[in-house]
């Protein structure tokens, strides 16, 4: 019997080994690697690595462009995540309603799932073209002046938010939909018998019953949007006036374009810490509310 158990254990480990090895090497080891590399500096002259301790971090903390990137990352996330969450809830509720046309709407709401963020960015950059784009023509037709859109430091981030949300909301909608399907119908029926209105049944039944799903969406969405890169890389390059220069883009530019690995790695570590703090705060808030 013991021998058989051992045999099963060996089998279990051999089943686990390939996948866990891949995760350990390519998902978890890079965390150690980035932390280690952030303590080194590559000398330009000899190309050798020199241990500099926390100097890379000290440089960043004295650099106003780093703090700008931190602020831009936080600001982007403060704006984009509530927007996406609310739209995802609305979309999920809409296609959860049993009504004529449901299948068509469902089909159309799923479309962005197949469209990559790069293609989304191309489409919306055409629509929001600063000079003669579609949006400007519509605005002119409605009597508004031509807008600079992503050539303007105050508007660029909103365009980025719009692009990322167009792609993102359908995805998060799937989770809302799954959460809604998990709420027993009897609760709504009982509420209806009691004469509870649809708005109060939404506030007092749907939202509390969805709270776990919503926390999951919010945390995953924050993780995704802290890494938001493609529209910034493709359209604004962090500008204008560094107004969309998120930490991820700044880290990419520092390490891959300027070849300054030490500072780039220190930025990634900072991003990691920032993200952990934000997510820990989310969980704490959620627990306190429960």
């Amino acid at each position: 019997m013991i021998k058989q158990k051992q045999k099963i254990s060996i089998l279990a480990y051999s089943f686990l080994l390939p996948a866990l090895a891949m995760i350990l090497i390519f998902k978890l080891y890079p965390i150690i690697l980035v932390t280690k590399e952030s303590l080194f500096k590559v000398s330009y002259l000899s190309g050798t690595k020199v241990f500099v301790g926390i100097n890379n971090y000290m440089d960043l903390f004295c650099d106003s462009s780093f703090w700008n990137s931190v602020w831009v990352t936080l600001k982007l996330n403060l704006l984009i995540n509530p927007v996406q969450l609310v739209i995802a809830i609305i979309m999920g509720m809409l296609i959860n309603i049993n009504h004529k046309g449901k299948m068509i709407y469902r089909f159309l709401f799923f479309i962005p799932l197949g469209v990559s963020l790069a293609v989304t960015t191309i489409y919306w950059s055409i629509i929001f073209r600063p000079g003669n784009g579609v949006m400007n023509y519509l605005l002119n037709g409605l009597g508004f002046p031509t807008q600079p859109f992503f050539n303007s430091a105050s508007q660029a981030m909103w365009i980025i938010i719009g692009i990322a949300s167009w792609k993102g909301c359908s995805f998060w909608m799937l989770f809302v939909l799954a959460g809604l399907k998990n709420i027993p119908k009897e609760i709504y029926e009982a509420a209806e018998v009691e004469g509870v209105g649809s708005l109060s049944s939404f506030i007092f039944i749907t939202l509390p019953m969805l709270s776990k799903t919503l926390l999951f969406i919010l945390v995953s969405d924050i993780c995704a949007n802290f890494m938001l890169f493609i529209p910034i890389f493709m359209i604004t390059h962090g500008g204008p006036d560094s107004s969309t220069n998120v930490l991820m883009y700044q880290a990419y530019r520092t390490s891959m374009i300027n070849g300054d690995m030490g500072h780039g790695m220190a930025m990634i570590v900072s991003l990691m810490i920032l993200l952990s703090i934000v997510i820990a705060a989310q969980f704490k808030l959620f627990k306190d509310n429960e």
Partner: protein
Amino acid sequence: MNRKHNKRNIVIYHLLSILFSLIFVLPILWALIASFRPEINIFQGISPLSFKVLSFFPFTLDNYIGVFKNEVFSKALLNTFFVATTTVIIGVIINAFAGFSFATMDFYGKKVLFSIVVASFLVPGDLLVIPTYNLIDSMGLIDTKIALILPLLGNGMVIFMFIQFFSQIPKALSEAAVIDGASYRQILIIIYAPLTIPTIIGASLIMFLAQWEAFLWPLVVSRSINNGMIQLALSTFTQQYGTLWGLKLAASSLLCFIPLIILMPLQKYYISSIASSAIKG
């Protein structure tokens, strides 16, 4: 009174749904239609806005022919299919085995090993692209297809999906088989494999889309056109003297419709597997 109220709700429902639908469909539809027009007619009908904006005429297939003749794009398309298919095949197998092991077997250190999976779940994909680049560099794999495939093989979410699936199957089923003298391999092949097809389809779609949409990782790790990936190849149509919009829109449309054609008939598997990983998490 109640009836009137209902009618108003239905109108709001349709208005909102149509609004969302239009926002989702119009850009894709416009790009698709415009991609069948010659370069000088791409932006026709935009200002002033007219029905011509959604007209196939003057009709041409030149953009699509041009896209496939473009070396960078056509190579990237083939590369992406190769890389994505390889990732799906190897990835589904190794993650399914890991999920099976977690769900059905007891072994020493299970909790610790499981926490590795959970931890990987919490690390967002693109966060560690730059240290992963250093890692791949130290392995001497920069600008290879292996470098594109390796980091996307182990997938915590897919393991989670398989754990969910395998733990739903009653243990009695495999216990009965063990009593009958079946080996674990036989149990896996005869009992579990047929039941697992929906999960395999869902996992395949997730892993395929991950490679299809890969951007930052190939941007960092690929150098030559021989290892180019599709999303980055779009930039080949933006050149120093301007953008070749016809080609760019044709390429973008292909990039939308290939995954949509794959995704649409299989959407229920995709949705249920995504949902299953969320509900327990």
